[in-house]
Structures are given as structure tokens and as C-alpha cells.
């Protein structure tokens, strides 16, 4: 897998940055001439991954950073990697089940991973308890035509 045009960003792990995380993803992907639907789907997937990192990676008063990495994978795929160095996930398969939530009254839906899976082509979750979590997503864009 050859990755080009790599962009790495470090952000404070606070929900106030969720909109900025989406906007940065949109700005990066816009260079690849995506459709409106593709752009919306990427923004949504990034929004889910970022809020997961903030809410579940750094629970309670825990502070830290969220690291976003973008790359173009030739010819028309975008790879997005979102990493936190927080508490990690004990059971990744369970965390990815639709409607599974650790919610304790905050009305979270447990649909974050399902949305990420639906709106991207590949998703991989690497996590170790106590070390953090990396979500890697690849989205294929339909916009590169060979004339």
C-alpha cells in the first residue's frame, strides 16, 4: 500500500474540536474531488471516530490528544487514521456491535462504529487496554475517471 500526501494532526481531546476535526477531513479530501455524498460520509465517519476517542478514550477528567493522519492511497482511496493514547478497549468485537454502549444515562446510541463501517469501505480497530486505540478507515472515491 503506497501512501502519498500524508498529513498528520494532533488535537486536544475535547468535544469542542469535533467540528474542526470534520472540517479538516473535508478540506483534505476535497483535494481529491469527491462527490457531495462521499464528502458527507467521510465527515460523518471522522466525527464518530473523533467523539469516540474523546468520550471513551479519555473518560471522566482524563486529558490527552487525538491524532489524525490522512493519506492518499493510489489511485483514489483516502486513508484516515484516528488515534488516542487513552484507556483502550477491552473487547473490540463487543464495542463494534450495533447498539452496544457503555452509556450510563447520557443517551448515547451505540451506533458510532456501525456508522463508520457503513460510510467507509474498510475499517480496522487496534486497541490495547491502558495504551489507547487506533481506528483506521479507508474510503474509495468514485471520482477518478480514466478517459
Amino acid at each position: 500500500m503506497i501512501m502519498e500526501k500524508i498529513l498528520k494532526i494532533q488535537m486536544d481531546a475535547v468535544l469542542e474540536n469535533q467540528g474542526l476535526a470534520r472540517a479538516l477531513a473535508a478540506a483534505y479530501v476535497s483535494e481529491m474531488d469527491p462527490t457531495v455524498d462521499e464528502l458527507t460520509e467521510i465527515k460523518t465517519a471522522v466525527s464518530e471516530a473523533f467523539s469516540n476517542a474523546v468520550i471513551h478514550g479519555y473518560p471522566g477528567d482524563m486529558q490527552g490528544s487525538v491524532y489524525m493522519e490522512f493519506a492518499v492511497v493510489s489511485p483514489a482511496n483516502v486513508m484516515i487514521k484516528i488515534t488516542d493514547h487513552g484507556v483502550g478497549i477491552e473487547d473490540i468485537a463487543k464495542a463494534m456491535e450495533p447498539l452496544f454502549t457503555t452509556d450510563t444515562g447520557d443517551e448515547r446510541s451505540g451506533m458510532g462504529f456501525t456508522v463508520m463501517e457503513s460510510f467507509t469501505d474498510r475499517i480496522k480497530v487496534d486497541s490495547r487496554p491502558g495504551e489507547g486505540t487506533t481506528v483506521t478507515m479507508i474510503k474509495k472515491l468514485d471520482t477518478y475517471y480514466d478517459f
Partner: protein
Amino acid sequence: MDMIFNIKGNVLIAELFGELDHHAAGQVRTDIDQAMEAYGTANLVFDFSKITFMDSSGIGVILGRYRKLEPEGGKVAIASCSLTVRNILNMAGIFSIIDYFDTAEEAIAYLTGKEE
């Protein structure tokens, strides 16, 4: 995020503007719950026509209001979503318990009709 509330009979219409994400969701929940209480309305319409972005946080906001109103006989309806928003709500099976309408007017007509 900004919201405009309108009241038609026993229906509160919450018109949401802009981006609904986990950051905005807390305020949206509080504002709607306070408005429902202040105006004493039993039914709620989510008007999504001015929403430019929504992630899965919207599912929690809608289901949370549904769970509050449903035991007291109140109804919730959703109006005017973009295709992506509808896809997200569909993933959670929202439309099997909450009715969808293309416009807020249709949703209001449905809910006010139900009271008669």
C-alpha cells in the same frame, strides 16, 4: 447550535439549524426538554430541514425524547431529513418506532389530527 421552537396546538416543533454532533447534542436535549415542560406540549416534531450535518448523536437525542414522551402517550415525528441523515437513523431502526414525513407541515397535520 441554534433552534427555533414553534407550537401548534399540543405539538412542539423543534427546528434545528446547522451541525448536530456529540458536542451540540447535550444542549439540544436540554433545550427541547425545557421547552416541552415550559409549553406543556405532549407531542414533538423534529424538523431537520436546516440541518447541514448529523452523526449518530442525533439517534440518542431522538430516542431519548421518544422514551420520555411515549409513556405519557406523547408522539414524536421526524420531518425533512437529508438522505445521509435518513440513512443514519435507518441504521438504528428509528423509523420502525417513529414516523417520518417529508415536510414539517405533514408531521404537524398528522400529530394534531391524532389528538382529535
